[in-house]
């Protein structure tokens, strides 16, 4: 059964305008951060969303746990339509869905000790307090590799390295025993050697606790290490969605192909050739009509400027949003 199901999710942010601008311009412009995304995540899988900065993947992640309110669309968690819940009901459900942020330096309250940061959730949901809470927190700290846990319990975030802080953030997410964790670029701000440790830790924890991840990253290499399925996102929509192996060996969308060809391989014998796309990512305020990728696409034709392609299943479990998906392969 799908643990998470998202139907036509949209999030539009109004562009900040000064008073005079608003008076003169009359209309409001919208940043269409997420512009109609539908997918489901199965229990126990790692679903990766890959895209470059500004494509909306972070917003999407936060939407799935209602940390950001959707403009429209539905979200189902374990069958419950969470978009309909009131804040009180939502709060109770939050135990089961957690998030790890990108910036290990900003995601921990500088004025709280690690033990309190990690254990606060236990108090909020009346699970444990005092000595009981400390016991649970120490166990979790041990599990995420902050050992000896007693030492880390009383430390402040600024006394920890980037990797250690991210472990603390993972501990905070785990302590409530969630089913689902959104990992928003959890390693992009860490050094390469630390990144490897954190990724391996996350895989271990997933097996041990039976977790489901929505893993967001801009790095296809990291996605290929972690994912069961990968969704490629561009300007607020998915352009391709497939199991990892399928996506990497048989990409069908021109953007996916371009991304794959542009990644610098740490292998001197595998040099990047010419990248088949031109131009730059347009601003999410001015989304091109029809297929939003068409201004940069080498295969673009008249239909691409008129009609927006839908995400269609062109092979088992392999979805592409492109009028020429068959040809591109």
């Amino acid at each position, binding site marked *: 059964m799908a643990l998470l199901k998202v139907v036509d999710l949209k999030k539009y942010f109004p562009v900040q305008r000064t008073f005079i601008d608003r008076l003169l311009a009359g209309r409001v412009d919208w940043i269409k951060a997420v512009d109609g995304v539908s997918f489901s995540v199965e229990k126990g899988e790692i679903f990766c969303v890959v895209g470059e900065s500004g494509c909306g993947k972070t917003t999407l992640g936060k939407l799935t746990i209602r*940390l950001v309110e959707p403009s429209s669309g539905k979200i189902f968690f374990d069958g419950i339509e969470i978009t309909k819940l009131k804040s009180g009901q939502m709060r109770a459900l*939050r135990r089961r869905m957690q998030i790890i*942020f990108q910036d290990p330096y*900003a*995601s*921990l*309250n500088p004025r709280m000790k690690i033990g309190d940061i990690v254990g606060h959730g236990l108090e*909020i949901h009346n699970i444990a307090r005092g000595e009981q809470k400390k016991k649970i927190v120490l166990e979790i700290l041990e599990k995420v590799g902050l050992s000896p846990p007693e030492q880390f319990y009383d430390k402040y975030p600024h006394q920890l390295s980037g990797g250690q802080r991210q472990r603390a953030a993972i501990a*905070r997410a785990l302590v409530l025993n969630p089913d689902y964790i959104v990992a928003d670029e959890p390693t992009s701000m860490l050094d390469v050697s630390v990144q490897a440790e954190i990724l391996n830790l996350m895989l271990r924890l997933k097996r041990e606790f039976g977790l489901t991840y929505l893993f967001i990253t801009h790095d296809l290499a990291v996605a290929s290490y972690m994912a069961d399925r990968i969704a490629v996102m561009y300007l607020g929509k998915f352009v391709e969605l497939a199991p990892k192996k399928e996506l990497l060996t048989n990409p069908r969308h021109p953007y996916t192909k371009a991304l794959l060809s542009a990644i610098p391989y740490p292998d001197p014998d595998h040099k990047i050739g010419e990248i088949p796309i031109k131009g730059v990512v347009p601003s999410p305020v001015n989304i091109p009509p029809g297929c939003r990728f068409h201004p940069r696409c080498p295969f673009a034709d008249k239909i691409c400027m008129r009609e927006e392609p839908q995400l269609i299943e062109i092979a088992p479990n392999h979805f592409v949003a492109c009028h020429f998906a068959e040809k591109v392969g």
Partner: protein
Amino acid sequence: MATTRNKLSPASLYEILKLQHIIRLPRGSEEWYTAIGFIIVMGILLMSILAPWIAPHDPTKIYVGPSLHPPSPEYPMGTDLLGMDMFSRVIWGGRILLLVALISATLSMVVGSFSGLVSGYFGGAVDRLFSIIMDSLYSFPGLILAIAITAMLGPSMMNVVIAISVIYIPTFYRMIRGLVLSIREEPFVEAAKAIGAGHITIMLKYIFPNTIPNMAVVFSLCVADAILTEAGLTFIGLGPVVPPTPDWGLDLYNGWAILISGYWWLIFFPGLFITLTVLGFALIGEGLNEMYNPLLREM
């Protein structure tokens, strides 16, 4: 690191305390500012508290000495028109000033910070309303505002405290509100929401504690300014004190009238101590400010 054997000299005591990480010498200009400011303020606070025991004479007793006697060994700061000992008056004279300034600053801090916190966190209509009120208050020059309020309410101690508090409420409000607006967007606040924390918890446990260093800075500077404002009020006759209460501001008021005849010590010493106290608090504030918001240094 030489320690004098068997004798607990200041040098060895310092070494021991340094080893235990209790104290150390200030390092860098910002720590020196705070340290010196702290010493000055502590000195003056102690002086004011221990006044009954250290003042040589009763500061309100007239004709302890001859009238208008210049500073001498017997009367180190001279005597005033009614023969009161200026030295004793100066020792006693800070009490009311400090009390009023500290209470006013605290009141401003409580009201200003609370409204800034609520305003910045919730935004919307509440924020707009508060901002307009605070901006209007802020646009008045402090002393003028204090004069207006005191004139309205009458010059009692409580009214002066209220008048002075009102001046600084917008300062705290703006500072806290600005901080809250930026802290509110930080990932660790989002994380608190994600684990299910409610508004009150987030405001009190996640946002407010991160404003404390800045509050300390503004508080010190506010006390410094409040002292000046209060002395100013007293100087123009609207102060909370009446003769013969020993008060630096009052002595300035009295001494100013006859200054022209050359009786400089009547205003010099009270004025010096006002300046010193203000300097002390300002140094603490500036020093703390440098420590928490250091001027951008090249990386």
